[in-house]
């Protein structure tokens, strides 16, 4: 087990350079072109002297390198700084306002994509070469090619406008928000046994997470299918059969083996999931990190944008760490 610990520690350490690299990238990218948060916020109603004063307060008058070093230094101390516009709130609280929404959306999208992908992929693999297999593969490529906003809007037109049975935006109906514990509405309403809030949040989640889930399921379909086919042709599967092991059991062994690469994909997919969430949030008016980021980019709110990027990076890194640990727990070859 010692090696697993070392493994996790190594992985965790690698998160730091990753985040710093991204941060550096974003820091300088954001400052290339004209436009600054202060001016965009107050427009031009404010006298130039005041504008200058505000800029100075925000530290925007210092040399870029100094700003950069300051910023990195603060981030290392867990200080994300304050937003530069509007309320000048701490970036971390701004993010925490938005992040749970994204998390909820991505978790559901993730669950849907995995369930869909695993079902379609295994069906295709077990019926290899059949029409069903062919249609699952078409599904996989189609799903992969879907353009999230478009697909989302088509769903909105069908379920929200034409049949008029599902809401097309927002997280929950007005006034039904459950007591905040985790800020994940579904989880909170379960904890507080608030079933009205639960059903309201679930129906609001349905279309966005379905959109995200379907689009991302294509990759899983493909991977599950290919892996399963690969595993099913492995010697040990034949060996199982040669010993008279029942089919159901063999399928279980095969699934377990086929799942190892799928888990790796889950880590990578989470990044794609977050990217997809930006578009999904825009399409479904979901008050999450994606819409937050877009808004703040527009106003050149450096601190918020950087904070969001760091948060994204940390989150992705955390997920891949978790994935690696799960991987190690499942696959004994890594553990020993």
């Amino acid at each position: 087990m010692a090696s697993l610990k070392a493994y996790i520690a190594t992985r965790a350490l690698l998160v730091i350079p990753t985040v710093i690299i991204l941060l550096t990238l974003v820091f300088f990218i954001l400052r290339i072109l004209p436009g600054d948060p202060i001016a965009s916020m107050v427009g031009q109603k404010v006298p130039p002297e005041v504008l200058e004063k505000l800029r100075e307060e925000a530290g925007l008058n210092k040399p870029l390198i100094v700003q950069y070093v300051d910023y990195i230094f603060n981030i290392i101390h867990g200080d994300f700084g304050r937003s530069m516009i509007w309320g000048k709130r701490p970036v971390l609280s701004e993010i925490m306002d938005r992040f749970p929404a994204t998390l909820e959306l991505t978790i559901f999208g993730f669950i849907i994509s995995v369930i869909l992908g695993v079902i379609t992929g295994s069906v295709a693999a077990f019926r290899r070469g059949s029409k069903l297999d062919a249609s699952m593969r078409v599904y996989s490529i189609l799903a992969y090619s879907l353009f999230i906003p478009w697909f989302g809007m088509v769903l909105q037109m069908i379920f929200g406008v034409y049949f008029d049975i599902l809401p097309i935006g927002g997280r929950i109906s007005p006034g039904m928000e459950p007591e905040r514990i985790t800020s994940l509405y579904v989880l909170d309403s379960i904890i507080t046994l608030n079933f009205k809030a639960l059903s309201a949040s679930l129906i609001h989640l349905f279309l966005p997470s379905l959109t995200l889930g379907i689009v991302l399921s294509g990759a899983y379909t493909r991977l599950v299918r290919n892996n399963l086919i690969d595993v099913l042709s492995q010697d040990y599967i034949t060996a199982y059969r040669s010993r008279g092991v029942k089919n159901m059991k063999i399928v279980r062994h095969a699934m377990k083996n086929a799942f190892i690469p799928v888990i790796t994909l889950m880590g990578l997919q989470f990044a794609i999931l977050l990217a997809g969430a930006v578009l999904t949030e825009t399409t479904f008016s979901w008050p999450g990190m994606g819409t937050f980021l877009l808004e703040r980019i527009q106003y050149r709110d450096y601190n918020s944008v950087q904070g969001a990027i760091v948060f994204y990076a940390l989150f992705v890194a955390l997920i891949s760490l978790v994935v690696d640990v799960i991987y190690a727990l499942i696959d004994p070859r890594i553990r020993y």
Partner: protein
Amino acid sequence: MMSLLEIRNLSTYYHSRRGVLRAVDMVSLSLDEREFVGIVGESGCGKSTLAFSIMRLIQPPGEIVEGEIIFSGKNLLELNDEEMRRVRGKEIGMVFQDPMTSLDPLEKIGDQIVETIQMHEDIGKKEALEKARELLESVGLPGNRVNYYPHQLSGGQRQRVMIALAIALNPTLLIADEPTTALDVIVQEKIMNILKKMTSEGRSIILITHDFSLAAEKSDRIVIMYAGWIVEMGDSKKLVNDPLHPYTKGLLESVPDLWLERRIKTMPGLPPDLVNPPPGCKFHPRCPKAMDVCRKEEPPEVQVNGRFVKCWLYGV
């Protein structure tokens, strides 16, 4: 005495885009109890397909197109899936070529053995695990290896595990498909000794190998396969000392041997394409003694001094 296994006119084909590949072509073979038979042939001659056909492990695009496989009085090809499942492992065991890939990497050795035992016998997990330990010890591994994962064992050790798995339910027939090809000679010798011991315990063994000398040394009887046919079979000693079929002879002469002081001879040509085999005898393009008839008609199957040969040289 009734034979344990009787294969009659077995044909197994693979369907590919290029056409039908006749991997096993009208093969008949019988096996007595406690007999150790070596099936020898080069890659692609159909020897593994034959073994897989006996176990009914042929997967699409492969297909057993005709024939009978009578094992202990029942035709395996007529059993339903569940009945066949009960035969596998319980009555016929099988050892595979590559010990590195034939064990499920995610399950402990013990669990794999226990699962196999429990598939066929209604015994508790504890008892089965105890049995697993004994089995491992019987193939020369410490009993505590039940707690190991396959990747923690060396190739030789894994092949022992495979044997332990194959004999877990004490089957009467053990098919070993190139069990030592991936192993070094010293390990090979040890594995072979374990197999050899099995015959004295009352099992029959089919050893499939490309190593002529190994088969000659270990088995009672040798079956030579070429291009889906059995071209010659008979008692090991006699076959080696006096090969009847030109292929057998050529093969014998082309194999270097540690103790025989001779130069090796080259066999001309390449093995045939089984989708478009040559007409007549499939060996004729490489045969030094090919006659006109060989190029036209399939050779007859003949008994010469109690040995089987498929060749026009001994023709009617």
